[in-house]
């Protein structure tokens, strides 16, 4: 498989949100606006790339029976590092996403990629896989966030184009499921062609 296709695979064929349907909790919870979706995606991508690299390096020496605990410790370490860095340097972003950052540890995308890819491939390929899946996840979250923000608040990235409120249901949980469902149908229809 070429290096380039490792990246593009994460965007369409193995898009984590619309095709693999992984990591639904942060996807549905944080996409109340385009900005929140984008930030959450980038945070997950940061952890994904670093944990993929480290896990691909240590995988050959990790005994089989303890590989899951070892992977989790590595992932949890990067998440905590990210959490501390965000708290220190981007406190505003941390204030909106704070609750969901620790949950990246149990995001099945991260452990899923460690199991399915990083544990069996080299460091470079694993880093590319992290980038591909990370970009796929970020774009998906941003798109869901954009749609929900347009319908729910009448704005895009905080820029308001109608006065007053939108359809508030789209900012709340039911709207998350609706938007997610319709985008999944649309995505898979287009991707099949």
């Amino acid at each position, binding site marked *: 498989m070429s290096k380039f296709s490792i990246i593009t695979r994460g965007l369409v064929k193995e898009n984590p949100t619309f095709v693999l349907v992984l990591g639904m909790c942060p996807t549905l919870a944080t996409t*109340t*606006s385009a900005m929140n979706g984008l930030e959450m995606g980038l945070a997950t991508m940061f952890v994904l790339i670093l944990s993929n690299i480290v896990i691909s390096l*240590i*995988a*050959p*020496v*990790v*005994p*089989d*029976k*303890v*590989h899951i*605990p*070892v992977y989790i*410790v*590595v992932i*949890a*370490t990067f998440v*905590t*590092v990210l959490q*501390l*860095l965000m*708290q*220190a*340097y981007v*406190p505003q972003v941390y*204030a909106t996403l704070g*609750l969901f950052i620790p949950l990246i540890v149990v995001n099945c995308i991260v452990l899923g990629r460690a199991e399915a890819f990083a*544990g*069996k491939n080299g460091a470079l390929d694993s880093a590319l896989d992290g980038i591909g899946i990370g970009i796929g996840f970020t774009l998906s979250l941003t798109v869901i966030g954009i749609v929900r923000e347009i319908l*729910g*608040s009448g704005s895009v990235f905080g820029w308001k184009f109608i006065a007053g*409120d*939108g359809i*508030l249901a789209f*900012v*709340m949980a039911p709207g998350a499921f609706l938007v997610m469902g319709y985008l999944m149908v649309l995505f898979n229809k287009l991707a099949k062609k």
Partner: protein
Amino acid sequence: MAAKSNLLNMAACLTGVCLVCSAILGGVYATTKEPIEEASRKALLEALAVVLPAEGEVNPEAQFIEFDGKNYEYYVQMLDTTAVCWAVKSTVGGFGGPLTLLVGVEKGGVVHATRVLSHSETPGLGAKCETETSFIDQFKGFDTSVKSLKVKKDGGDVDAITASTITSRAYAEAVSNAVKVVEKIQEEVQ
């Protein structure tokens, strides 16, 4: 592929990984400790500047007082040598979780201004308590000796945010608690 497992290499591997990870976390914690404190201090000073009047000097050292079984954190604004305004950190249960406000209260139970420190209200509804100026501004100069800190639905004088009565009620309650705390602070001083 992965090495064959036996007790020794499993224990050694887990210990090794945990040691390295703890060392990394320790290092990051040590380097970010100061910026984190700096950021939270800056956020507090910013909030204090909003809820307290411009004249006078605020003591950024937190003080504590017990009221109604809860411990309240507060800050005093001094003009020359007299205390003129108090900023009280007041937490109540909102619609989605705890709602924490910083409330500036002048002598005589007049609210100077309020500011949301943290909340978990519904985006687009209750979360407006942080941004909707028409709601926030009604608390500026709110005189509790003539007006009542309850939403209009409950017979008070606070205009609730549309479709977010519970959040508005909690907000009013937090402000009202802060006013009572300041009353107690003043009593204790005298």
